[in-house]
């Protein structure tokens, strides 16, 4: 008999057996969306791909964007659990299960996009029977399959002790099939020393193995594009660029999942601000690296003046794809801002006028007025005497300054709301990364070498299948976490033991000045011993 902590029992085990109405309503809505998508896919199967917005030369559209997006999201799990486990980051414990589940389910949904995109899904097996290893698609099949098998194993291994825990701590009213399920899943786990050693060893091996596989997955996905000679794709930077983007969007998705779980199941004691803060720091790093890659990628095309690549770039900067491109840039910049600036301003910042709400409100109003003049292109009363060229820079410059002040005010507000700031940034980045995939695939597809330039507008079928894919992802997530605890109970319990041991360590406090401040910076408040 394994015993669970009373707190874990109430917070983590009880919700598995008590289902509220909201849960069933959500499930019903998700199933409805999935049903709609299934019907639309059936139509696509019978009528052919003409129900999509794809044509010549836009041979790849939203399905391909979704494919890269979902596989990108799947990098959340690897990063959090594998890298953090290998580096021994203790704070990872409460969020590993969520991260690993995102990986497994995003991979399923992502791979599904390829089948949806195929003209002849009935010949899927041909990829194995007649597969040519020289084709990047085969590399993809191999690496995604390896990653999927790896991440399913990696999700399952830490579930074993928890399944045993559930098996032994079932509430009396639970149905019989759940006892059977947990007994099977627990694989006869008794929690003895040999079993723990084996489990830890298996997890450690998997953690190391899965990191190179994860890196290979998104590299190879980028190579599907980069191995062609199409304008804008034939770039060596694509491999690392996609991997960074994948981890970036993965953390964004993890933030959203963490916050919803924390809020719905009231897990504030488990998922604390520490997780948000530490993961936020990785997120900021990824954001910076992503921006560096994005800048480098576009900068080189700008300087290259390739006759075929240049139109792809201009279509993003001020052409057909300017909206999706600049919205992406804005989302990334704003998400970076609300993650970084609140960390930089001091707690006493409200002494300064620029951080006070009334100043921010004023800046918002001014920005709205300036933006209105800019959009409508109307004349500004009293400024008609100014040289139009000076006015051009004046209006834009003042808008920028006003937005800067708005940003400072917002940063002050987010300063005390770490979870809110992080979640908002996560949502922005997930949307921004979807747009990034769009901005990579569609402008190149619409601006080919010889064929006349085209436009691409997704149809209702593509919208339905995208919505269905997202719904399927959330559905799998909800069902899985109705069956298994959202937080790895044994890992958190292990963490508590380690914390308790560490708390006993005494740190001698030298009298030298400055040491106190340095220790305080590391989170150690009181001198002991």
């Amino acid at each position, binding site marked *: 008999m394994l015993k669970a902590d009373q707190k874990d029992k109430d917070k983590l085990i009880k919700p598995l057996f008590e289902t509220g109405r909201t849960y069933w309503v959500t499930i019903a809505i998700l199933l409805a969306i999935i049903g709609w998508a299934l019907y639309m896919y059936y139509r696509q199967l019978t009528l052919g791909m003409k129900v999509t917005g794809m044509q010549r030369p836009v041979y790849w559209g939203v399905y391909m964007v979704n494919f890269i997006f979902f596989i990108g999201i799947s990098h959340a799990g690897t990063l959090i659990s594998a890298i953090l486990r290998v580096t021994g980051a203790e704070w990872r414990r409460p969020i590993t299960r969520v991260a690993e589940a995102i990986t497994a389910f995003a991979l399923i949904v992502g791979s599904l996009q390829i089948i949806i995109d195929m003209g002849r899904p009935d010949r899927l097996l*041909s990829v194995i029977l007649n597969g040519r290893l020289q084709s990047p698609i085969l590399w993809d099949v191999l690496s995604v399959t390896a990653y999927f098998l790896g991440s399913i194993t990696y999700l399952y291994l830490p579930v074993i002790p928890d399944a045993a825990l559930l098996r032994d701590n079932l509430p009396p009213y639970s149905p019989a099939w759940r006892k059977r399920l947990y007994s099977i899943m627990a694989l006869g786990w008794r929690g003895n020393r040999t079993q723990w050693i084996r489990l830890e060893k298996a997890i450690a091996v998997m953690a190391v193995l899965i990191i190179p596989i994860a890196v290979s997955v998104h590299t190879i996905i980028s190579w599907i594009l980069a191995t062609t000679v199409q304008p804008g794709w034939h770039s060596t930077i694509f491999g690392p660029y996609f991997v960074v983007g994948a981890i970036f969007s993965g953390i964004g998705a993890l933030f959203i999942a963490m916050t919803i779980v924390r809020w719905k199941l009231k897990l504030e004691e488990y998922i604390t601000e520490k997780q948000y803060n530490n993961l936020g720091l990785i997120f900021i790093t990824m954001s910076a690296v992503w921006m560096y890659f994005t800048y480098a990628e576009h900068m080189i095309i700008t300087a290259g003046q390739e006759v075929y690549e240049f139109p792809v770039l201009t279509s993003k900067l001020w052409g057909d794809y300017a909206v999706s491109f600049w919205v992406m840039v804005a989302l990334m910049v704003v998400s970076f801002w609300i993650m970084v600036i609140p960390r930089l301003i001091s707690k006493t910042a409200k002494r300064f006028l620029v951080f006070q709400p009334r100043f921010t409100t004023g800046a918002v109003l001014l920005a709205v007025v300036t933006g209105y003049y800019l959009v409508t292109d109307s004349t500004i009363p009293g400024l008609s005497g100014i040289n139009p060229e000076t006015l051009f820079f004046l209006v834009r410059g003042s808008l920028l300054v006003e937005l800067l002040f708005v940003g400072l005010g917002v940063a002050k507000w987010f300063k005390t709301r770490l979870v809110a700031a992080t979640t908002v940034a996560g949502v922005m980045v997930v949307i921004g990364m979807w747009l990034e995939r769009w901005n990579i695939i569609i402008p190149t597809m619409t601006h080919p070498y010889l064929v006349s330039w085209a436009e691409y507008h997704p149809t209702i079928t593509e919208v339905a299948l995208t919505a269905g894919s997202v719904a399927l992802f959330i559905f799998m997530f909800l069902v899985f976490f109705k069956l298994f605890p959202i937080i790895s109970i044994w890992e958190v319990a292990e963490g508590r033991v380690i914390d308790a041991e560490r708390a006993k360590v005494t740190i001698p406090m030298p009298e030298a000045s400055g040491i106190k401040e340095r220790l305080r910076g590391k989170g150690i408040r009181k001198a002991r011993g």
Partner: protein
Amino acid sequence: MAKWSMVIDLDKCVACQGCSIACRFENNTPVVSPEEAALGRSILWNEVFPLRSEGEAAIASAQAKFLTRPCMHCEDPPCIKVCPVGATYKDDEGIVRQNYARCIGCRFCTVACPYGVRYFNWYEPSWEEGMDTHLNPDRVAGRGDLEGPAIRPKGVVEKCTFCIHRHHKAIARAEAEGREFRNSDYTPACVQTCTAKARFFGDFDDPNSTVSRLSQSRRAFRLLDEAGTSPKVIYLHEG
């Protein structure tokens, strides 16, 4: 073993689109409704189009340069490299072929081809009444694969094959007549029909063939040579 090659003299080409029409009837490419054609779903194995660099003004003033474009049958084809199932392949005589029975419709080859010579069947091909009973019955000899003018199912990619079935027919005829196959026995439909006699077809390896001699011309160039595909279709510059 011949290395089939085509030379197109742009000086002679009048952009009548006869090649496109001949190809259509020879290879049973499906007819597309005007709405679908406006969406960019027409299938023209040999397309005639104005060059983009000429701009709208040139097209309006009838000054534009037109290009007629069959498959380049590259020596180093990007489409074959990316196919995951080997549905597209280069045969012994250098012709890039497409097996409809094996294609999984992933459209990687259509994306990889810089010339846009590959077409996807967005839906079940159909013909107007009357036309559907007069389709080309010729079939590609050999392994019994769905190739060449065979009716394509929906969801697969198709492309110009240099009328490969005509090649097979010419060999069969030479055999029936009890003589050696001559390179001049085999001509694709577009070459045969060309109004201005702007197209030439033959064995590139034979130094005395028309195509070898024309490819030595100072006007000779290959389309998108910088893509590194080494096309076997050679154009002759205007003027």
